[in-house]
């Protein structure tokens, strides 16, 4: 079987298109590259969406944590503590068990005027359930980063905003928030890299892969189990992830440039990339 044929069969296998049966013997390098690459789609899906939605929740959590009102601050502190203080692996297990326990035929919401049935079955599927966990997890980690940045917004900036007559939402939107992002951006880049790495945990924790549609590591593990040779599939995953990491660094570097476009080019803060390990 030629490599083009293999590509046609397995390029979108992780999404359920193409050949249904996975290769069973005589694995070629082409098959391994194609299947693991097709699994990478899920890693990018989880990482990108969790990062996107998590960004907004993280901002809210950081602002809440910085609040002087006790009722607002405490929940934010606990949210950050619980998600940063426990392993993501356990969070996946716990979330899966909790989602399974939800009533199978949906929750009946009895509003006064209508009757709604909220479907819950989809939450036990990895594409939704794991995304929820990753979303909350990254929101907690980035929330802590943003909170730290929020605390170090220069006092003079706020005073200048006050002098211009800005207050409330306007001051936050125009002064505090952009400065917070500028300060947090290098750390936030690391968090993004770190989150993409964490997406490999999805199919190794509570969430089962349905019809063998898994992520990159799921297929790599499949090959390693079948051939009993870890020296080919895992380096392939490593190769793909280095590409993803480089892409993230490039993209976040561009955003960093835009955030700091008003600064003289010499004194612009450079991104220092220090990726972290598992959470």
């Amino acid at each position, binding site marked *: 079987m030629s490599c083009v044929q293999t590509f046609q069969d397995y390029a979108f296998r992780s999404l359920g298109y193409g050949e249904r049966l996975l290769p069973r013997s005589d694995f070629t390098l082409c098959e391994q590259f194609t299947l693991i690459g097709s699994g990478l789609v899920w890693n990018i899906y989880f990482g990108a969406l969790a990062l996107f939605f998590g960004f907004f929740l993280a901002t809210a959590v950081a602002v809440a944590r910085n609040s002087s009102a006790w009722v607002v601050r405490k929940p934010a502190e606990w949210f950050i503590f619980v998600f940063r203080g426990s392993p993501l692996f356990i969070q996946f297990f716990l979330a899966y068990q909790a989602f399974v326990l939800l009533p199978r035929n949906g929750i009946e919401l009895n509003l006064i005027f209508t009757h709604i049935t909220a479907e819950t079955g989809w939450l036990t599927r990895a594409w939704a359930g794991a995304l929820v966990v990753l979303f909350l997890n990254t929101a907690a980690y980035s929330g802590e980063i943003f909170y730290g940045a929020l605390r170090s917004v220069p006092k003079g900036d706020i005073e200048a905003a006050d002098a211009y007559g800005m207050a409330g939402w306007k001051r936050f939107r125009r002064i505090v928030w952009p400065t917070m992002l500028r300060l947090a951006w290098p750390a936030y880049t690391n968090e993004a890299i770190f989150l993409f790495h964490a997406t490999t945990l999805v199919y190794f924790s509570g969430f089962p892969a349905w019809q063998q549609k898994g992520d990159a590591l799921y297929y790599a593990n499949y090959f390693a189990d079948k051939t009993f040779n*870890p020296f080919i599939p*895992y380096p392939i995953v490593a190769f793909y*992830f280095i590409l993803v990491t480089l892409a993230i660094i490039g993209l976040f570097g561009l955003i960093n440039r835009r955030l700091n476009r008003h600064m003289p080019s010499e004194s612009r803060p450079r991104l220092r990339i220090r990726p972290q*390990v598992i959470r």
Partner: protein
Amino acid sequence: MFASCADPSTLEGLNWLACYLTSGKHMAFYQSFLVVLALLAITAPAALLFGFGGAMAARSRIWPLRIFGRAYTAMVRGIPDIVFFLFVPVAMDQGFEWLRHKVKCPDWTEPVRQGSDFVVCPAAKLPLSTSPQWVHETYGFALAVLAFAVVFGAFAANVLYGAMRAVPRAQIETAEAYGMTPRQSFWRVLVPQMWIYALPGLSNLWMILIKATPLLFLLGVQDIVYWARELGGSKTSIFAYPHPDWRLYYFLGLLIFYLMLTRVSEAVLTRLTARLSHGQATLAGEAQRKAAQ
């Protein structure tokens, strides 16, 4: 455990729960918490040692050693560490068996890799197929510890390398002015002072290490995640203690265990930072000096 637990089917309420929570399997579950703590206790110094070696190699004046040190620290960047956790134990296992195969059975002619199989002579098997169960378990655990030490050693090397460069240059110059050799100034001046610079990174690493321990489950060790799944799954009436699916509560217990572990570590590390800042030429050390006056 208790004499009254002889016939679980007659028990009710709290008595049932007390007997249930002290059954033999639950004792194994409680012991597996010790496995996690043992892993932490062994891995942390081992990773520190690997890291120290890596950092020293990366600073070395000998070119190949320096390249090796740099490559080791750069290795884990950009690659998800779970890949390492899956890769290192199998690779190490096969590496050890292959070496033993070369030494013990030199006249073995068949290739080691036959299609999808990895075949070494029986005398080279690790552990030997005749050895008792506990040897197999200990070997698996040792491989897991090695995998953790390699991965976290690379991160520790990164931190220590940075810390060694953070010690003010003037300190080394003073040591040189006193006529110390590079070796002496390294051990007597640089190493004692670098810890305060390394501590933020190392404490971060410790937190990450704590949170990586559930991955033991992926390596086939019977750790707390294994037992939580095992005990929590629904038990039918053929079991001594039938119950529905309780995995949620078991995992909730694990979550609380980890939260407590990180909270306690945080407190200890804060105290350690204060302790190490004592007399250092840093802002925190300066603040302590001012407060003491």
